């Protein structure tokens, strides 16, 4: 896995923005590309201050209380509420969620 060490200023190119937007499943307005890359550059250069600390000996912290995942008994506690859940869906039929055709 590579990293961005060695680059002092982060600049997102528009093709990179297109790739991130694809990963994030967001349609990007082409009129807005400059504004967005500019915003992202600003934010990424700001967070780049993090590189000023040597953290080679530091363990990452993901849960502030360092809790571990609790396990529960593998038993049914909820009933099926398909109708209630599908009532709020944009499009359903016969108990299924409708999306545009995926396979030709």
């Amino acid at each position, binding site marked *: 896995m590579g990293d961005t060490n060695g680059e002092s200023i982060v600049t997102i190119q528009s093709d990179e923005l297109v790739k991130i937007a694809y990963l994030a499943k967001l349609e990007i307005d082409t009129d807005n590309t400059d504004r967005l890359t500019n915003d992202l550059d600003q*934010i990424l250069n700001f967070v780049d*201050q993090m590189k000023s600390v040597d953290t080679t000996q*530091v363990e990452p*912290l993901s*849960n502030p209380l360092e809790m571990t995942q609790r396990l529960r008994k593998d038993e049914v506690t909820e009933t099926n509420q398909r109708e209630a859940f599908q009532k*709020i*869906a944009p499009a359903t039929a016969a108990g299924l969620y409708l999306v545009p*055709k995926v396979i030709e």
Partner: protein
Amino acid sequence: MLPESVSELLKGLESKSFSSEEITRAYLDKIKQQNDSLNCFITVTEEQALEAAKASDQRRANGTSGPLDGIPVAHKDLFCTTGTTTTCASRMLENFIPPYESTVTRKFAEAGAISLGKTNMDEFAMGSSNENSYYGPVKNPWNLEYVPGGSSGGSASAVAAGLCAAATGTDTGGSIRQPAAFCGITGLKPTYGRVSRLGMIAFASSLDQGGPMARTAEDTAILLNVMAGHDPKDSTSSTHPVEDYTASLNQDLSGTRIGLPKEYFSGNLNADTGKSLEAAIKVYESLGATVEEISLPHTELSVPAYYVIAPAEASANLSRFDGVRYGHRCDSPKDLEDLYRRSRAEGFGAEVQRRILVGTYALSAGYFDAYYRQAQKIRRLIKEDFVRAFDHIDAILCPTTPGAAFKIGSKSDDPVQMYLEDIFTVPTSLAGLPAIALPCGELDGLPVGMQLIGNYFNESKLLNLAHRFQSETDWHQRRPQI
């Protein structure tokens, strides 16, 4: 004239000076008069509130009332409420009626509280000014040209303006404390895991924490008693025992050791805010507390680390909004990819999209170590700073924000400038510690707040310190002229 605080309202209800129906009507009238200008509420549930108030009066007559019975409150519009839209102030969830109830709102209902409705906020809780709402900005009741803070701006503004007795908020990087400071009320972010996150629409799961927003520390304690506790349905909820948070409010402060972090009293702090804090420190000294300088050396790195961790977690959490199962769906999608991408682009506002993009970038192959992992390592350094400090002190006193509320529009064009507003609140969030914000001064007609940070699960010490301060001063009793 009705009393303003939850504690006095409870006494009045108990002594039959007024009924819940009467006070509920009074709040609903006030909402009708002032919500057009303040924009605190997204949804007002008048009918349900009046019905619930009548039921509450019945319970009180029967002698079966709960700890908040008959008290009109408001809930931030990201707590799922069955039967009432829960929008997160987003177009994405404009018509979303949750199929289940959040633990927090359920506990309020079980305690007898009356919900007046759902309050405005920054979209998906992302913001420090409440300008990022699909439903328009919330105004600060102290001056309508100023922001109320964010993201729980609607709750803060509503409590300050007296449109509800108290409210719920959520805090990911300061979203309870900063609006509490800007609106001159008391707001507590509990220890991470103290309050259940079930049904609280997720922004950044390792940081999000619900908490009370009220007029006084005593009210905040009464509300926390209802909200706190283990929830088997939230795997990050703590099993640490819950105290009666009202029990130690009046405890003597002799010998309490208060730390003043030198990094919080330097460059970023507005000089007048500094003076208000100095006066607050004197109050504590007069109450028998001792004060000493401490150092939290990694403070400055907290905002950069936060603005990697929070967007990274947000980009994962918000992937659930796909235009298929619930939420906004674009018109006539040409294929599945188009359905996802246009539904999300239309449903999310600018700041939410910005954070999803930053988070996606930080988590993507080749950048994960440099951004997300590095941010998590800094998170540990920040936590260790606090752990060292709490070795020899009981609480930390510092500013909540660099200055008082700012004008609507003055920072909305510069995301980084806006992020720096959070410098004094995000370190605590990253460490998962409890912190309370309360008013301690005024500057050009706007409230100025202080923040008290406590050790893990020591909310009662914070409430004790805040309550004793409020017993000696009247900043919390000052009201905006609206």
